[in-house]
């Protein structure tokens, strides 16, 4: 028996607000902390209305100090609360790096589970919105390399809400990256109230038999457009939205690769030691997938240069053409 769940069309950022709202309501231990998240409702309005609804004890404007935000969140988390710490832009997470890599991720292990850090770090990431300098980084690979934290990146409103709720309920630290470019890029049917999208599961967003394209976050629309273009040439790509970057959904990647034997990985983070490197290695590690490869795996990524000022950001970002080029290359291989 299925209960009718009401859905509405909302944007990705509204979905994020809803996820926090839902969890703030269900669980009194949930807190929101960050710069400008309270009275102002967040610089992107992700926390809009929450301050009014839950008050300053739960929606907390902090001083301007990322290490302070994460460090105190760790203390709150290991003493009974579930902090959702907002980092205003992903490019400003670095001052908190020590607190994340040395503490948030290690406290469970260091104390054999006596103390734990159930917290979510939310941050808008990525280029393409003409933001000021250093506001457009996409350094998720720094965090997938770091043991002890999960990394989640939604690409649509439905996943955003369900994954954020799952992240808040996760007993361990989760880095939740929000594609700034997709915050208001479109609306999608999203259920009211509580539901979860599981962490660690990718999704096939377009089935196909010729080429597997793996991507996530703000690159999904680019990839889909390239795949559609190639479809007109008769090339059927299977497009997978990874959704979680650590741990990766090995089974889904593997089964798709075994089907197509050809793989393109697309991300806007830098190439060297980026996610595409790990996924390439993962496919290589899985003997059946490796043996089914009919061509070298193709990486379409941000370049090994800093994310530029906005006049050059389109040149930096993987383009539809760049993905299409690789599709053609593999189709003809």
């Amino acid at each position: 028996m299925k209960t009718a769940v009401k859905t509405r069309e909302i944007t990705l950022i509204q979905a994020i607000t809803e996820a926090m709202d839902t969890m703030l309501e269900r669980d009194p231990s949930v807190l929101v902390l960050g710069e400008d998240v309270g009275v102002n409702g967040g610089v992107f309005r992700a926390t809009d209305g929450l301050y009014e609804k839950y008050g300053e004890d739960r929606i907390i404007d902090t001083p301007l100090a990322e290490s302070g935000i994460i460090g105190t969140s760790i203390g709150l988390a290991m003493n009974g609360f579930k902090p959702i710490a907002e980092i205003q832009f992903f490019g400003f997470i670095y001052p908190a790096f020590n607190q994340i890599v040395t503490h948030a991720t290690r406290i469970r292990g260091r104390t054999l589970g006596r103390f734990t850090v159930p917290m979510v770090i939310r941050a808008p990431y990525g280029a393409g919105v003409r933001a000021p300098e250093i506001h457009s980084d996409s350094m998720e690979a720094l965090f997938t390399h770091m043991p002890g934290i999960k990394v989640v990146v939604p690409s649509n409103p439905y996943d955003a809400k369900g994954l954020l709720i799952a992240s808040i309920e996760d007993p361990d630290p989760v880095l939740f990256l929000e594609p700034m470019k997709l915050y208001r890029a479109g609306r999608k049917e999203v259920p009211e109230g509580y539901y979860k999208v599981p962490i660690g599961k990718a999704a096939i967003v377009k089935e196909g038999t010729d080429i597997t394209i793996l991507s996530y976050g703000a690159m999904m629309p680019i990839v889909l457009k390239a795949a559609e273009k190639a479809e007109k040439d008769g090339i059927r790509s299977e497009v997978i939205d990874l959704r979680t970057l650590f741990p990766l959904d090995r089974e889904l990647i593997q089964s798709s690769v075994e089907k197509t034997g050809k793989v393109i990985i697309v991300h806007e983070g830098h190439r060297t030691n980026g996610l595409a490197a790990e996924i390439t290695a993962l496919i290589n590690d899985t003997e059946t997938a490796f043996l089914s490869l009919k061509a070298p795996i193709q990486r379409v990524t941000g370049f090994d240069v800093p994310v530029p000022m906005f006049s050059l950001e389109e040149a930096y970002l993987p383009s539809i053409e760049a993905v299409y080029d690789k599709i053609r290359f593999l189709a003809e291989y």
Partner: protein
Amino acid sequence: MTDYPMRQIIDGDGALVDDRYKDQLTPELVVEMYKKMVFARLFDRKCVNLQRQGRIGTYVPFEGQEASQVGSALAMREDDWMFPTYRDHGATLTFGHSLKNILMYWNGRYEGAVPPEGKRIFPPAVPIASQLLHATGAAWAEKKKGTDRIAIVYFGDGATSEGDFHEGLNFASVFQIPVIFFNQNNGYAISVPTTRQMHSRTIAQKAVAYDMEGIRVDGNDVCAVYFAVKEAAEKARRGEGPTLIEAVTWRYGAHTTSDDPSKYRDQSENELRRKTADPVGRMEKFLKRYGYWDEHLKAYETEATAEIETAVKAMESEPAADISHLFDYVFAASPWPIEDQKADYHRLKGGVR
């Protein structure tokens, strides 16, 4: 607790309230101060308009902070170092930065962070408070070279919460480095008021932690700012170490052009402040009151506007951003990954495979 009274030389009505600086307030100096503030304000308003018209990207306005920025920049020596934030174009312009380049900065262009040849101006600091350490390092280098060049570094009230603020002041005090920590306390860090940013009543008192001199000054009084910085600069040049200056000011506008200040503060306060404490208005009153006013100063606005318009035109007639700026300046010599990626980029653009 240590008390830091706010220094003032000219009050909101343009009256000289501190006689000690009378002789140093030459006609040239006060007119220069006034003009630079007018220029800065016109420039700032122009940028806000350009942003609204979609001719530049997000912009960070500084209207209301002209006295702090112009006064401090004028007090520095031409060959000194300046480390501004994204909001300090009033200071960098006064200090000799290129109008066109600043405009290009807000147009997302790398040229925007390049100062004119020979000018020691660092790119605007974006990650809050990180620049305090760069300024400290650069000034330390001057000390090691044995010059008497010094550095001034700008930062906001919000910046005082970051660890780098503390580390910068500590290094500077331990090594007695000739750097001026120039804080513009404009009451807000985006939406967060100073009272929520810190529990201390002043920023100046934070200098106690380093046995450093701390000074609190009316940041809307260009003269008070000028002499506070000048004295700190002389002290630094004499080898007597760093100073923390808190210039108490106010931004009239939004944090950036994407911000809506009515979400977090009562905007009527702006109008009150504009009447009673505006840096430009106050200086105009002062000039008039003491006979420095000259009708050609009225015409100066037209002159300044023309100069700004010329720069806007120059900015807008620049060719599109150079793709080599993306690839060729990461390293002195690009390693193969960058070279390969650049070639691949060009191959794709050329449509050849």
